[in-house]
């Protein structure tokens, strides 16, 4: 029999400490919708998504009620669209957006291209359409993989992405560059990530799969409040135990959703994902360890410990762990990160260091609107290099805030939050970016 204190602990986590299931993401393989003609392809895509995801939102809501835990988002990830159509993909983008609205999900990811080694004609067409598509659609998210440990860094794609991010920001300038919040540039992108904006359904995935992302930075923070001043051994153990409990609930929800929808269970993603709400911040876990603000010396070590302990605790709690599985450090979506930037404690360079030890990367960072495309490409190249060399996923989601300068505030609203514009190192790098070509894969990628 479960003890009363255990029941109270669970209820307290949910009611007071913002513990929730962040997302049930249904991965749908669209390879069978492929067609030379974009309009025909769009019809098939729309039909398949509506058919497969018909019960997703309803099922999520039922589980939410019965287990008494909020499931914040119900989402869909699809096969990278550049793989299913060579034609101009814009009709497919519109069909995806309509399908998302029809089934009631709040985001659909997979307007994507995998071009870490080079681009196909379809990749080029998709890339060219991204700024317009993200300004014209509501639910669609886009991602581009520009590097991998096995293939190196595609510097042509890196160059292009700098320009695309600028253009997307300009086309959505009236919403503070919101389009860029739905666009991620990856190195070592994963195929089963349930989190947006970078979710897509990889080519190695089954016909469809249920992937679940848990959350609960508030729960970890509160657990650490009980071990104030104790050595790091105790801190790590406390985080492990908490991550185990959180992940067990994620596994339960994933299994329930899989059973009810008769769709195979894919993975549970262990990531600690913050929201802008107080008490739901990854940065505040770091400050709880004894730092005045995220960004203070010691931050990278604190984050490394957190990321590792979350994995160690979570990995025992689920049959299949996957996705990004680590701590997220988005700036605009985390009240503690916003405070750190506003206090001048956290710089872009420190964030870059932090991305070496956690998932994922430079995330939801507003930069001055006049930042050049080459500078953005340089930031992407640096982040991709970290991912490539360290055999991990890294990502860049930067938002050039048109007409704004460092220190100004941008507002995205909802889960996307608000962000102070961060200053960027503007030393000229245009000759570096103009070179193009490929940075070869590192020697340790040759494992065979």
């Amino acid at each position, binding site marked *: *029999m*479960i*003890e*009363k204190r*255990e*029941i109270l*602990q*669970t*209820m307290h986590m949910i009611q007071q400490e913002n513990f929730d299931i962040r997302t049930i993401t249904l991965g749908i393989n669209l390879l069978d919708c492929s067609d030379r003609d974009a309009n025909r392809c769009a019809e098939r895509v729309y039909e398949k998504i509506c058919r497969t995801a018909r019960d997703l939102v309803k099922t999520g809501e*039922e589980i939410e*009620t*019965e*287990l*008494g*835990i909020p499931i914040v988002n119900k989402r869909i990830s699809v096969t990278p669209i550049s793989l299913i159509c060579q034609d101009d993909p814009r009709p497919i983008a519109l069909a995806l957006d309509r399908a998302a609205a029809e089934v009631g999900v709040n985001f659909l990811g997979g307007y994507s291209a995998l071009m870490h080694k080079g681009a196909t004609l379809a990749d080029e067409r998709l890339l060219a359409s991204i700024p317009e598509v993200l300004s014209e659609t509501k639910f669609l998210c886009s991602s581009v993989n520009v590097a991998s440990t096995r293939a190196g860094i595609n510097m042509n794609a890196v160059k292009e992405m700098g320009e695309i991010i600028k253009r997307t920001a300009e086309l959505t300038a009236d919403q503070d560059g919101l389009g860029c919040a739905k666009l991620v540039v990856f190195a070592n992108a994963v195929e089963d990530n349930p989190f947006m904006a970078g979710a897509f359904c990889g080519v190695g995935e089954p016909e469809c799969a249920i992937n679940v992302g848990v959350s609960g930075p508030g729960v970890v923070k509160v657990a650490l409040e009980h071990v104030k001043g104790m050595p790091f051994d105790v801190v790590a153990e406390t985080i492990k135990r908490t991550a185990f*409990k959180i992940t*067990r*609930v994620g*596994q*339960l929800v994933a299994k329930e959703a899989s059973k009810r929808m008769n769709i195979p269970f894919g993975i549970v993603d262990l990531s600690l994902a913050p929201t802008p709400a107080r008490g739901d911040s990854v940065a505040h876990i770091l400050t709880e360890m004894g730092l005045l603000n995220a960004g203070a010396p010691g931050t990278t070590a604190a984050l490394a410990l957190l990321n590792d302990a979350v994995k160690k605790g979570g990995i025992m709690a689920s049959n299949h762990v996957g996705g990004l599985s680590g701590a997220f450090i988005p700036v605009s979506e985390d009240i503690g990160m916003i405070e750190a930037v506003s206090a001048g404690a956290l710089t872009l360079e420190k964030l870059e260091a932090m991305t070496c030890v956690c998932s994922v990367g430079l995330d939801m960072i507003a930069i001055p609107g006049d930042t050049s495309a080459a500078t953005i490409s340089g930031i992407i190249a640096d982040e991709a290099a970290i991912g490539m060399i360290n055999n991990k996923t890294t990502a860049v989601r930067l938002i050039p805030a048109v007409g704004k300068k460092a220190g100004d505030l941008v507002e995205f609203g909802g889960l996307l939050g608000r962000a102070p514009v961060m200053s960027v190192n503007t030393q000229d790098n245009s000759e570096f970016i103009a070179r193009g070509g490929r940075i070869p894969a590192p020697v340790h990628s040759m494992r065979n």
Partner: protein
Amino acid sequence: MKKALISVTGLDTTGIIARVAMKLYELNINILDITQTILGGYFTMMMVVDLDGAEKSFEEINLELEPVREELKMSIHMQRMDIFDAMHRI
């Protein structure tokens, strides 16, 4: 056995347990365990119940509890025990 936890919290008054138990009886829901305390006039009760005998679905039972919530002006929350088992038992 399909078990659920019903938690009842709010200002203490007479007949809370009676009212909730009567409704459960009507729905053919067996009570397996009750713990209850009062702290500073604040009533907290946790009931573990067995839903196997109930003809109505989880959602319908939840709706049936709505008039009891309103009448007692208390928060009455029902959730499946699976979430506690998952979190606290290996």
